[in-house]
């Protein structure tokens, strides 16, 4: 386990927009105002 070099603690989280499984798209920035847990999966959840 190690800290991310591209998204280190204290840095602005890189924004993104991705398709959501099922329908629509989701942008990280749309969650501004509340905390977000980003879980990158290897394979499935």
């Amino acid at each position, binding site marked *: 386990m*190690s800290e991310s070099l591209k998204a*280190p603690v204290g840095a602005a989280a890189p924004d993104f927009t*991705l398709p959501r*499984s099922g329908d629509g798209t989701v942008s990280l920035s749309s969650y501004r*105002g509340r*905390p977000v*847990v*980003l*879980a990158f*999966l290897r394979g499935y959840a």
Partner: protein
Amino acid sequence: MRDDYEQFKAHGAEILAISAEPAARSDGYLRSHPLPFPTLIDEDHQVFDAYDAASRLMSLGQRPALFVIDAAGVVRFGDVGAQQWNIPSNEAVLSVLDAL
């Protein structure tokens, strides 16, 4: 994380899962194993790469990673592992949320 989702919600947090599996495969899997939080499809690995969760020289594919981003959009916790079981415990993540 699925099992502790209510605790995450109680902290006002949303969970976003990011999968590099092709949409067709993810959709099929999620229909039979629905998750209570959004699962986003990053087939091109652009977001994996932006968060340093893409493969390194000696590993193949993507790396499991977990980040906590605060209400202002700042990374407050980040961990990139080599294997799925390296991800931090829910208790550790909830304690990060507690401290925000």
